[in-house]
């Protein structure tokens, strides 16, 4: 029978909340299904510019035959669609996110408000320095505080994320060795390292040597010494490591590396645990990358943007990517003698108290309230032996601004409190979950803990991933699953400092409940079916890879093909 309906009656409705989780579990149509030819949302300036025909502007051979087909929707349907998508998304603002190694702490709203200031957000990156003094000052001041936090001599802001920071650091390592006419081929990485480490090593043209962890979950110093020789360019370490454990032998590791002329690289993924407690520079690290989107609370955006500045010791400064924001005049003001822990050739010249902004009104001696002489100027400078450029422009500036705001708001006292509360939460949780889940490296942790679901798997057939999916039903994001690789069926839990004791307790209860349930009738079965309360149930990952559908057009083509 012929369909008597109008054409629009057969299409999905844009303004119908068919998918909002509070209302139903229906699919959300794609924007392409909501598209209706000739419908528009756009609205542009009235410019009064002569309407030259396209053919007069661009020679025919360069023209596209038809414009690219994009969705054609009303603004109302566009807003409904993306708002509904956002309601199908878990986030820190929705609830706790104890995703190990990712430091999913609360992202302060004031930092977003700062990044939205027109005087920061609307600056063209090619503007001459006279138009960007605020930005340059921000970069220089952020560099100074990051030097103090890490115990290093200088920082490049260019790397856009942690992995970009790793690659930058490895290129600096290469430049350093080449400057000594030393050709080295290998970089040592512990078996507990993040996957980005070996991938970055390969990109930097080095070979990976993996060193096994010892029975305590730390770098095995003896085995490390066995693989260390003058072919080793460097060692990449995370400290605390991915088991949440502090590498207690770090001083000896640094000495062993330096004895063979290798450099020590610090992966900053876990810096949150040691803010204001100890510093990579004091441990002997030569290169440090930071994940501002972890430690310094810039929001992760569903997968990015991040920022991965790289801090280096004095001897590597001349190799940093350029151009670098620099202060053209020295700050005036009282030079504070270096504190005992900062004494040393690498750090004495940097980050005195008076060179940093303070909130107090202090207009004396011709200074602004922030310790700067009115005439302070900032500009660009490229280090003499710079490795080159690691970003299209200067780095992820708006992420850097957020991180700097976070650091200033916390201050020295607040940053130490960050580490204290992060470690307190993790150790409380560890104590609470002991005996409930196996802990292969059972000793006090720093900011995160790793438990194993291996016993649940052997007894009940319930894997770490099942526990993770059950936790989603309990209203928590799941921990990191199956990492680090050296723990059988790992669950890596990082509560972060911004979760209250009540929330951490609720997480512990949920994990206890799950462990108890899987031992009961049907409990294991239910766990393997989880999650059932989420916008979709367990997703078929194998199908996604086997029958790849990365775009709407390929889906249409496959459906047409049958």
């Amino acid at each position, binding site marked *: 029978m012929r369909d008597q309906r109008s054409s629009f009656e057969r299409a999905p409705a844009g303004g119908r909340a068919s998918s909002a989780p509070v209302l139903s579990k229906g699919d959300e149509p794609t924007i392409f299904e909501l598209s209706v030819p000739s419908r528009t949302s756009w609205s542009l300036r009235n410019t009064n510019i002569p309407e030259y025909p396209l053919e007069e502007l661009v020679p025919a051979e360069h023209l596209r035959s038809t*414009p*690219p087909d*994009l969705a054609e929707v009303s603004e109302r349907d566009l807003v409904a669609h993306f708002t509904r998508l956002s309601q199908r998304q878990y986030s820190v603002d929705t609830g706790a996110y104890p995703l190990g190694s990712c430091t999913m702490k609360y992202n302060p709203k004031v930092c977003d408000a700062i990044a939205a200031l027109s005087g920061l957000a609307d600056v063209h*990156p090619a503007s001459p320095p006279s138009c960007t003094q605020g930005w340059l000052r921000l970069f220089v001041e952020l560099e100074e505080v990051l030097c103090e936090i890490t115990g290093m001599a200088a920082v490049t802001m260019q790397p856009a994320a942690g992995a970009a920071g790793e690659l930058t650091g490895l290129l600096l390592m290469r430049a350093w060795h080449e400057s000594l006419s030393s050709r080295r081929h290998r970089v040592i990485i512990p078996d507990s390292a993040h996957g980005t480490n070996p991938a970055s090593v390969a990109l930097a043209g080095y070979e990976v040597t993996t060193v096994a962890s010892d029975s305590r979950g730390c770098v095995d110093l003896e085995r490390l010494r066995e693989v260390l020789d003058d072919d080793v360019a460097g060692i990449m370490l995370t400290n605390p490591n991915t088991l949440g454990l502090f590498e207690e032998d770090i001083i000896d590791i640094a000495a062993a590396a330096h004895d063979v002329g290798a450099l020590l690289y610090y992966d900053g993924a876990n810096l949150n645990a040691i803010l204001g407690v100890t510093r990579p520079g004091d441990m002997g690290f030569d290169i440090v990358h930071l*994940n501002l989107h972890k430690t310094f609370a810039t929001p992760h955006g569903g*997968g990015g*943007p991040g920022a991965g500045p790289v801090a280096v010791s004095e001897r590597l400064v001349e190799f940093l990517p350029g151009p670098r924001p620099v202060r053209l005049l020295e700050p005036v003001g009282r030079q504070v003698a270096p504190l005992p822990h900062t004494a040393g050739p690498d750090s004495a010249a940097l980050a005195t108290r008076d060179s940093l902004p303070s909130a107090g009104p202090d207009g004396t001696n011709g200074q602004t309230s922030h310790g700067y002489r009115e005439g302070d100027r900032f500009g660009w400078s490229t280090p003499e032996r710079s490795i080159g450029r690691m970003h299209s*422009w200067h780095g992820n500036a708006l992420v850097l601004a957020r991180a700097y705001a976070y650091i200033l708001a916390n201050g020295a006292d607040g940053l130490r409190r960050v580490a204290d509360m992060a470690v307190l939460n993790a150790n409380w949780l560890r104590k609470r979950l002991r005996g409930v889940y196996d802990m292969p490296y059972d000793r006090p942790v720093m900011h995160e803990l790793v438990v194993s679901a291996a016993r649940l798997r052997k007894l009940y057939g319930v894997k770490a991933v099942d526990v993770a999916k059950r936790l989603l039903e309990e209203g928590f994001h799941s921990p990191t699953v199956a990492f680090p690789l050296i723990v059988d069926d790992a669950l890596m839990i990082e509560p972060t400092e911004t979760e209250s004791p009540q929330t951490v307790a609720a997480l512990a209860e949920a994990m206890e409940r799950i462990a108890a349930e899987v031992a009961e009738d049907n409990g294991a079965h239910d766990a393997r079916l989880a999650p059932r309360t989420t916008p979709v149930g367990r997703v078929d990952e194998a199908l996604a890879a086997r029958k790849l559908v990365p775009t709407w057009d390929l*889906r249409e083509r496959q459906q047409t093909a049958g």
Partner: protein
Amino acid sequence: MTSWAPHTPAEIDEMLAFIGVSSLDELFRAVPASLRLATGLSIPDGIGEPDLMAYFQELAAANAPIGRDLVCFAGGGAYDHEVPAVTKALASRSEFVTAYTPYQAEVAQGVLQALFEYQTMVARLAGLEVANASLYDGAHALVEAVNLAVAATGRSAVWVSEGVNPRWRENLITIARARSESHVIHIVPLEQGVGVTSWSTRESSADATSEPPAAIVVANPNFLGCLEDMERASALASAHGAELIVAFDPITAGIIESPGSAGASVAVGEGQALGAPLSFGGPYLGLFACSMEHVRRIPGRIVGQTVDVDSRTAYVTTLRAREQDIRRERASSNVCTNETLLAIGAAVQMAWLGTSGLAEIALRSARGARYCREALLGIPGVRLAATAPTVREFAVCAPVSGEVIVDRMLDEGFLAGVALTREIAPQGFEGGLLVAVTERRTRAEIDAFAAAFEKAVSL
């Protein structure tokens, strides 16, 4: 101090007691005493939100932003296109902003579906079959494309047009230098006065003794705004069995032949113009699309459509075996964190523009650029630095250098363009000025700009 850690002193004591330690310091006993900071960090103590905001307002006041202080005629890889309230509102939904990478697909359908739609739109813009879920910026996309071509062909030579954004080229060379055996970058200069790639140098040298390239890289439009002879670039790539990598622009893509239809197997681009503010250069958005044959070499994340246990439509990151966390040193790239939020914003922006809107802003930009170019060329002593056809951006020479013009025009309230300084200018184009005109520039602004320009170029 401002602290976002909520613990009360009583709660801290209770937790310490439960753990079985007597102080917070004791939690750090694994840290050797010699490494502990005796007196804490030497930075000021924390401040409250109002003081914090006041300080950053002061920093912001020390800049000259577009809109408030300057009318923007600068491009060079960062453009002042319209960003409507709806894009800002949807891209700042905190569920998107504060989520992590969608590792748990069941609670990440929002980000995953938005990325699926983004991938579809980028693939359509590029005229290729598949796009990834974003890279850092244009430079990063270029680097990854070259890595893909080198891996796919097993060759090492890469011919890169000097018309590719100089900062991207510098990033490529910085990284390629570390792998000089597998990555040999040859820069192919631009034709003097014309501004398009002078492939003839490569066409004649391509004898049996020189190694065939893994890839030929060309930007269209190029850094000087010029439209390249894509047929020639494509023929050269075909003749050598090389990948054709095209750096394209997502706005001019509304009217210009797509990379895919020009023969590209990989397209890269800077996506900032799709809904992101100028942001002093970041975070931006690396666009990456390629043909299906390369799908297993794509860098970074790809979202695929699939089903859940109840056969409902669902989305998930797929072909994960390419990625660093699985394959480690054999991964196709080291990228982990990317620019997802910018990609979601770009998807919103592209849907807001729609088919007609993207073509419209490309056309309006081209009209504005034509009007501006004619006005500037009417000024004595001003001529085109490159005569090839352009769309939104063009390069001029004047009796004074681009740097001087930019400097002089600041006081008149214009960011006059991107000066072609020695550091960034393609060979032979030093001293010029690159002028970009978007759909946001009005006739009145351009008239005032031309008048100020005439004053600025007088010696």
